[in-house]
């Protein structure tokens, strides 16, 4: 018997492991495995596919918002030279705001699904890493956001002849930056829910609205009082919505605004991920992974 064999467990003698995995497993990285990320994405896709009302709900609110702001736009076109100058400025604002809102909610709900189903105990005795869970709920957030927003954007073309895709490549940057900022809020909310229990779940729906007035969705940031403007410029959405107006009014893509949004997102996403992972460690200290009630 070799030295190595001497350290095999009886189970392993009968089923010799390969690179630390049993013969029925495919050896994969213990640090990060895309297959584990996709396993969680698959789990949430099953939930979405099994429930038509859930799919409908994803698209419902963005569509209602779009219809409402479409009528407001129609009214203001004839009563406001500012809106008339760029017909889609309000509709583009509301659709992009919904990207941020859906990004946040998609991530938070995907996380809360695990708490609602009391599944965290099983997940974290599997080889799944906490940051793999973060990667998977970000992926789900992207999927949920696309499923929610795309029908509203298509209906905007039909109802109001406003084609947000006419923004071209800048739209991709706006979408990506707002989605990531939605993840930042979603991660912080999820950390709060993990730490304080499902009693805090309403934060997933309401926390983001605190950012609304400071985001400059429907008006330029210089509309805000002088003392509040630095606060707005400390957050990503101000750069995105100002950039959106630059494209719609002036036909110019402002690289400076894009750069500011990306820099802030890198900073905030890194910080929010750290907060979530630290909270996860706290949850392990306090035994919260098995006790996920209110």
């Amino acid at each position: 018997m070799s030295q190595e064999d001497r350290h095999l467990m009886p189970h392993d003698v009968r089923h010799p492991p390969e690179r630390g995995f049993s013969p029925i497993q495919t050896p994969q990285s213990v640090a990060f495995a895309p297959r584990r990320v996709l396993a969680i994405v698959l789990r949430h896709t099953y939930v979405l596919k099994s429930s038509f009302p859930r799919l409908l709900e994803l698209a419902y609110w963005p569509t209602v918002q779009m219809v409402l702001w479409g009528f407001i736009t129609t009214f203001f076109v004839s009563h406001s030279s500012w809106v008339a100058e760029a017909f889609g400025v309000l509709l583009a604002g509301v659709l992009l705001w919904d990207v941020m809102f859906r990004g946040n909610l998609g991530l938070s709900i995907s996380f809360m699904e695990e708490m609602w189903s009391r599944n965290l105990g099983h997940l974290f005795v599997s080889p799944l890493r906490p940051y793999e869970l973060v990667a998977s709920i970000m992926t789900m957030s992207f999927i949920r956001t696309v499923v929610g927003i795309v029908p509203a954007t298509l209906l905007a073309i039909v109802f109001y002849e406003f084609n947000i895709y006419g923004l071209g490549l800048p739209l991709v940057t706006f979408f990506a930056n707002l989605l990531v900022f939605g993840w930042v809020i979603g991660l912080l909310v999820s950390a709060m829910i993990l730490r304080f229990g499902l009693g805090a779940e309403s934060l997933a729906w309401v926390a983001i609205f605190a950012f609304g007035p400071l985001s400059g969705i429907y008006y330029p940031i210089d509309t805000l009082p002088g003392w509040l403007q630095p606060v707005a410029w400390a957050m990503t959405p101000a750069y995105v919505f100002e950039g959106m107006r630059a494209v719609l009014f002036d036909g110019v893509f402002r690289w400076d605004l894009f750069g500011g949004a990306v820099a802030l997102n890198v900073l905030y996403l890194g910080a929010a991920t750290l907060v979530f992972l630290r909270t996860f460690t706290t949850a392990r200290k306090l035994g919260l992974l098995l006790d996920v009630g209110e």
Partner: protein
Amino acid sequence: MSQPTPSSAATDTIDAPPAIAVEGLTKRYGPVTAVGGLTFSVPSGRTVALLGGNGAGKTTTISMLLGLLLPTEGRIRALGFDMLKERHRALPRMNFSSPYVDLPHRLTVRQNLMVYSHLYGLRDPKGRIRELAEDLDIAHLLNRPSGKLSAGQKTRVALAKALLNDPALLLLDEPTASLDPDTGDWIRGYLNAYQRRTGATLFLASHNMQEVERLCDDVLIMKGGRVHDRGAPADLLARYGRGTLEDVFLDIARDRTRPLEGEGQPRAERPDRDPELPGGGSGPESLSE
């Protein structure tokens, strides 16, 4: 089903390291000590039970062994890996089942098993699910939502999830809680057969004394967050002069009697006893032979 005998798989490789080795394991919540200074080891290929009343520290101990709960002090090694520093090297070959931790209710049984098959990186998820479904008689449940199952069905599905990766170390929290005697007996028989077939190490927390007597090679009895006594079921019965483990358990829970003089280990050599109990002491506890 024939009455099983204690497993013999441990004799396969006498030099194997313990499947679980715990040293000075302590968990405090503020001033409350839930688990205090546990030291024990579980030889590879054995079935070991953790017995104790409510609040004795069983679930806390199992949670720490799994890494779901971080200890305040102490060290844990599972399958040779330090569970505080490199638990992800051990987790692919460990698994866990508990009636108190659910699988997502909205997913069907098949979907749940498929998700966990991918998490454990199985080569042939469909084949493994089919195999376990036949073994555990859940093939007819595969397309049912997990939330619509009876307690017995849920237990078998949870067991299927726990066996997906053919674990070398399986931790079970009250595996037959809330089950009728027939289903409970079936589960015990299955676990025993699995252990004998694979040589896996089973570590289970239980309130069911018959289960422990039937399945386990060794028993750790916890009280007040400490290991109060340990030994093979037959040894414990002899030491306490009782006919059933339930009576032994009640004696310990109610501080009613002490082990008979001259039975089992001498008291001075039986460490980790509650110091306030007559004949008690303190120190490390080991199941290693």
